[in-house]
């Protein structure tokens, strides 16, 4: 991976961390917030989103042709995807630790992201998988095709 590609990946990663925080505030997903207070989470998201391009464009010349060290369109899509996935996995891991005590009661199963309003990711996921493992035969047909 060239330095330019790595910097582009970090640029997307930082921006994606911010976008996830703003999206989580909009969706009231407390289990995804790094900072408990929504206003603080918005501020953190804005800082990440603003810092990403400022850092990216202040650390080198970015208008470079593909064959002179730039990134092809397909490469941009690939590394943007990787940056977004890394940001999502990092957010889920960090917020699972920070909000570990959230939602340790009964949660409705298969609520998806909605369950992160009341619970941390790890709690919601383990609740879903436990429920699923107990009743997977019946649930499979109803859940996907019912």
């Amino acid at each position, binding site marked *: 991976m060239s330095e330019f590609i790595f910097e582009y990946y970090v640029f997307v990663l930082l921006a*994606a961390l911010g976008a996830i925080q703003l999206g989580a505030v909009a*969706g009231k997903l407390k289990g995804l917030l790094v900072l408990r207070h929504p206003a603080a989470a918005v501020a953190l998201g804005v800082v990440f989103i603003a810092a990403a391009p400022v850092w990216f464009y202040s650390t080198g010349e970015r*208008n470079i042709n593909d064959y002179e060290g730039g990134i092809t369109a397909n490469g*941009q899509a690939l590394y*943007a995807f990787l940056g*977004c996935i890394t940001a999502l996995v990092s957010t889920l891991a960090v917020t699972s630790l920070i909000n570990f005590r959230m939602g340790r009661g009964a949660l409705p199963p298969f*609520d*998806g992201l909605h369950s992160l309003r009341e619970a941390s990711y790890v709690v919601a996921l383990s609740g*879903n998988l436990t429920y699923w493992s107990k009743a997977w035969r019946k649930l499979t047909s109803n859940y*996907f095709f019912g």
Partner: protein
Amino acid sequence: MNSGVGKAPLFDQLVRYLVSDYLVPVAALMVLLGLWFAGNSAAERLRIQIGVFVALVAMGFSGLAVFIITALYSRPRPFLVHDVELLFYRPTDASFPSNPVAVTFAIAVGVWFINRRLGLALMALVAAYAFARVYSGVHYPLDVAASMAIGAVVALAVLWAERLVRPILKAAIRLARLFCVA
């Protein structure tokens, strides 16, 4: 439009950032990423996530449409034909249509169907991006105008076609819900 280059160095610098291959496309993707988590009910979340899917597929198909058009018709870049003050590198592909403008406008139209205000804001940003591509000397105005039209038509076509695959989409989103990521 390119004749203004050099008269306002600060504005030229701003255009250099805006015209970049990375700033506006990444901004459009971040809007989609943020929207994925928005929504105040399960039904609204499903509507938004289907919209995000439509925008992403429209982005892909717009790129394909541009690829096909450039294979059939190759218009030389303005800097190869005219005396132009370039604010960008010298792209080697055809001038018509503009791939980055088409794909980002397709995303903007997709976002417009999810959230009107956000969609309009993104369309305005893509319009500024299109202006920057012309101002910096890498496209003609017709190239970017046609690209916006391509992006819009492809997004509308994908939106129409989405109904045909909606059951599969819903099943995929439900599978993602099992893992709490949708």
